[in-house]
């Protein structure tokens, strides 16, 4: 038995979709955060309403963490499938909370366990000389040094119903999630008062539900305490004073809050996972507090008939001067390609929040991938300027959201803000967001047109050709400043033109804005280098968290590696990235896609290339262990393949 590990835990809760896995995980996460601990959690689920297996992984630590690990120290279950799917990941010294009534359940009796998964599980059990029932899975884990914790949920529920004198409650299996959670908290020696507070908070909208859950949790906590509090479990969680100004935040809230601060007042969307949450959060909070007075602001959120309408409507709104956005994922973004070009040729400031998920086509609709980098940069026919910025984590996504609106206004072009499923469906403790750190830049928007901006006929020239590729912009409704827009090539006024010379001038004007953007955008928004060393890990987007944790783990072993996070994907910051890679002996690209898309972008823009690729495309985010192992192999093993494919994840 290892000695007790305090405040360093990988906890997983699973269950059928719709059975309260999320609520239980939210309570767990919030309780840990309220106990002064840092957490990083991620949610995995099927494209399904009810019944399929979903699970939530939460890593807890004394210090900030940014990724999950392969091993599970405490698996919290209340159905058989969760045990079957995850027992192989339970670490020696770890534990499994399970329902003893289910021990005879066989793998084949779990209809939602697909053939591929069940074959793999059976193989593991068979190789260990075990049968195919739940008790065999538990045997497997306990033989490796894990502890099985039987919690008779139904019996405990009946007792609790009797205790509070509400016999109907015994049917309330909905509370089993919180009971399982509470059992695990008891096993971990977690302060029950903090747990109570977290339950109250999560169910704050329903007092009676909150009270019942608190009662049931207390009942199970006491039971588990009496049965399992033998001091033998290897992991514990101990509360400490909370650090000041910390929040616990989900990745589907951060960019939406950024939009509020940025002044985005119009957002459109068509329902799609994992992007809808962004719009729904805005709509749920459509009335906005303002700093100065009792006045209120508001965000108009429109659910459209499809994604084509979504982007078209957002562009229409942007023309009136409202900061406007649409949020979508790959399939929806595919539909937006034509209108994106319209915004490009008409120099309309527009923000598209692109929450990547695994493609192509419907792909793995609820799973993660970074497969849309090239598409974001190239979507749409013809050539037009756009800015593409990729956020690395939840906190970045908040601040980046204000930046993308500033870029859109300043350079009068569409800006694609790349996020992804891993960010959207993760939760983390973070320093509180600080809106006073940001500023709003609306670029050269004018309310009155000067004579200099008018043509010979006295008309305002929306697309005035001058040394500055950015023309003063007015919004629809402005007096004495009418203009025209067209998806055709156009004159300075905005009328259709097919003149060959004007065409060249207009193309140059538009494309030159990218050079200007590249000149003006600060380095920290282009790429960031962490650590130092002649081995460089190169990545973009949400692999940031896991790579940061890897370089920290390597550092503890005395190995210094550098991490370069590219943020501005278009226009590509070639000079900066080249300088960051100068002197590198090995450049290791780490990406959640098949072809290492940043690698080809790097080659295309700088002539440099990855020496090694670590890629993953099974739909599950990279874990700390697998990235660490892959990098370590490259460092240690001369014969390591140039391309390693990571495969962990249930």
């Amino acid at each position, binding site marked *: 038995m290892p000695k007790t590990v305090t405040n360093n835990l990988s906890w997983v809760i699973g269950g059928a979709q719709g059975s309260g896995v999320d609520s239980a995980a939210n309570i767990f996460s919030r309780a840990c955060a309220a106990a002064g601990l840092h957490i990083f959690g991620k949610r995995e689920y099927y494209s399904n309403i009810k019944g399929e297996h979903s699970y939530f992984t939460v890593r807890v630590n004394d210090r900030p963490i940014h990724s999950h690990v392969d091993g599970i120290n405490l698996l919290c279950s209340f159905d058989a499938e969760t045990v079957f799917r995850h027992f192989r990941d339970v670490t020696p010294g770890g534990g499994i909370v399970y329902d003893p009534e289910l021990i005879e359940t066989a793998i084949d009796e779990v209809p939602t366990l697909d053939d591929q998964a069940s074959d793999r599980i059976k193989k593991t059990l068979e190789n260990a000389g075990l049968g195919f029932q739940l008790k065999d899975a538990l045997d497997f884990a306990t033989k490796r040094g894990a502890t099985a914790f039987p919690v008779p949920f139904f019996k405990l529920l009946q007792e609790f119903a009797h205790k509070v004198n509400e016999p109907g409650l015994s049917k309330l299996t909905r509370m089993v999630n919180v009971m399982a959670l509470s059992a695990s908290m008891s096993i971990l020696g977690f302060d029950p008062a903090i747990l109570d507070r977290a339950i109250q908070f999560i169910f704050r909208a329903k007092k009676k539900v909150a009270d019942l859950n608190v009662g049931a949790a207390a009942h199970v906590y006491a039971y588990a305490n009496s049965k399992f509090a033998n001091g033998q479990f290897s992991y514990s969680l101990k509360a400490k004073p909370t650090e000041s100004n910390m929040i616990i935040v989900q990745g589907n809230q951060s960019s939406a809050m950024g939009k509020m601060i940025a002044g985005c007042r119009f957002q*459109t969307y068509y329902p799609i996972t994992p992007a809808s949450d962004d719009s729904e959060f805005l709509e749920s909070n459509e009335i906005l*507090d303002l*700093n100065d007075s009792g006045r209120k602001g*508001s965000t108009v959120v*429109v659910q459209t008939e499809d994604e084509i309408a979504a982007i078209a*409507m957002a562009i229409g*709104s942007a023309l009136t001067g409202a900061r406007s956005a649409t949020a979508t994922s790959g399939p929806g973004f595919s539909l937006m390609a034509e209108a994106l070009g319209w915004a490009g040729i008409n120099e309309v400031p527009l923000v598209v929040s692109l929450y990547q998920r695994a493609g192509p086509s419907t792909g793995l609709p609820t799973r993660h991938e970074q497969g849309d980098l090239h598409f974001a940069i190239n979507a749409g026919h013809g050539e037009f300027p756009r800015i593409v910025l990729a956020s690395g984590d939840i906190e970045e996504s908040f601040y980046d959201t204000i930046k993308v609106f500033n870029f859109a206004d300043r350079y009068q072009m569409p800006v694609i803000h790349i996020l992804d499923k891993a960010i959207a469906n993760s939760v983390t403790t973070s320093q509180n967001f600080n809106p006073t750190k940001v500023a709003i830049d609306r670029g050269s928007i004018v309310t009155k047109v000067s004579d200099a901006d008018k043509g010979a006929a006295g008309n305002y020239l929306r697309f005035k050709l001058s040394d500055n590729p950015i023309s003063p912009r007015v919004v*629809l409704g402005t007096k004495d400043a009418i203009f*025209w827009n067209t998806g055709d090539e156009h004159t300075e006024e905005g009328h259709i033109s097919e003149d060959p010379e004007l065409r060249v001038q207009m193309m140059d004007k538009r494309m030159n804005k990218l050079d200007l953007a590249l000149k003006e955008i600060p380095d920290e928004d282009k790429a960031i280098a962490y650590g130092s060393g002649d081995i460089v890990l190169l990545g973009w987007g949400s692999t940031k968290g896991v790579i940061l944790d890897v370089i920290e783990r390597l550092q503890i072993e005395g190995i210094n590696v550098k991490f370069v996070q590219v943020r501005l994907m278009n226009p590509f910051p070639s000079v900066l990235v080249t300088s960051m890679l100068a002197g590198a002996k090995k450049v290791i690209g780490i990406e959640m896609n098949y072809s290492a898309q940043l690698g080809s972008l790097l080659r295309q823009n700088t002539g440099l290339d990855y020496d090694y690729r670590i890629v993953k495309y099974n739909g599950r985010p990279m874990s700390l262990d697998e990235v660490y192992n892959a990098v370590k192999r490259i460092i240690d093993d001369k014969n390591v393949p140039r391309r390693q494919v990571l495969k962990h994840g249930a």
Partner: protein
Amino acid sequence: MALKLSDYKTDVHNDWCSGCGDFGILNAIQMALADMQRPINKVTIFSGIGCSGKTPHFIRTYGIHTLHGRVLPFAQGAKLANPDLDVIAVGGDGDGLGIGAGHFVGAGRRNVDMAYIIFNNAVYGLTKGQASPTLKLGMKTKSLPQPNVNNSVNPIALALVSGFTFLARGYSYDVRHLKDLIKKAVEHKGLAFVDVLQPCPTYNDINTKEWFQGLDNIDASTGKTMPRMYKLEETGYDGIVHDPSELNEKMAQVIAKSNEWGDKIPIGVFYQNEHIPTYQERIAARIPNYMESPPALQEIADASGKPITNIDRLLGDLSVDK
């Protein structure tokens, strides 16, 4: 100073075919704007793609020539962000009822307060005469390799069941009548649809100006030609829903009237229902200051560029000490 008709005209060269029905519609729009004395800067004409898509370039107001089939979403976005604008959307029959049919239905459900005019000539002119969604089944215009194999859509009926709250049909060569319809459409509270029948002199050799005039339609008793168009208002037809209880009856008569075709084709106002809340009113029911402070008119930063939105309440909820 009063705005004149010429104030609504640009000097952009118009390259429509001579005899094109689009001219009548363009004139009717400009006349309607002048009649209503709409300020130049308050009006935005949105258009789709095709010959009709060029319309905004000939009108001296804000003009936004959008994408094929997408004019309604662009236009609705602008109107919702700034309800103070007069938004008029125009486009062809293929644009609105073919590639844009989904948006046509979606727009009906919203009932955004604006007008939509379809230039309906039953062909795709700019791509050289293919069958549009309003060409009748079995018709073979001169540029079609084979007779039209699709049934036609009934634009008025589709608009009705989609939720448009003003429905009218005009004829491009009856410009004064059309102007009046457009004025009514713009002044209507809600989403108004004007279906304008027009010849395409180049590609539609069936529904020609002469055909609409009824030169082939001889009254046997008098020997005179009978124009195919007749005006609903001259028959005592009343399309206005005066009371919500009349709804089914009024809707039924729209279906019946809009199905008339051939020797007798009704034009005029088919339907008007101002009992349905506009999308703006629906938003205002949730966001009380929406009309005074819509997205386009909200301040978002102070003079120094600092954001003025305060999300302390939301962040407070996320505090680990909560």
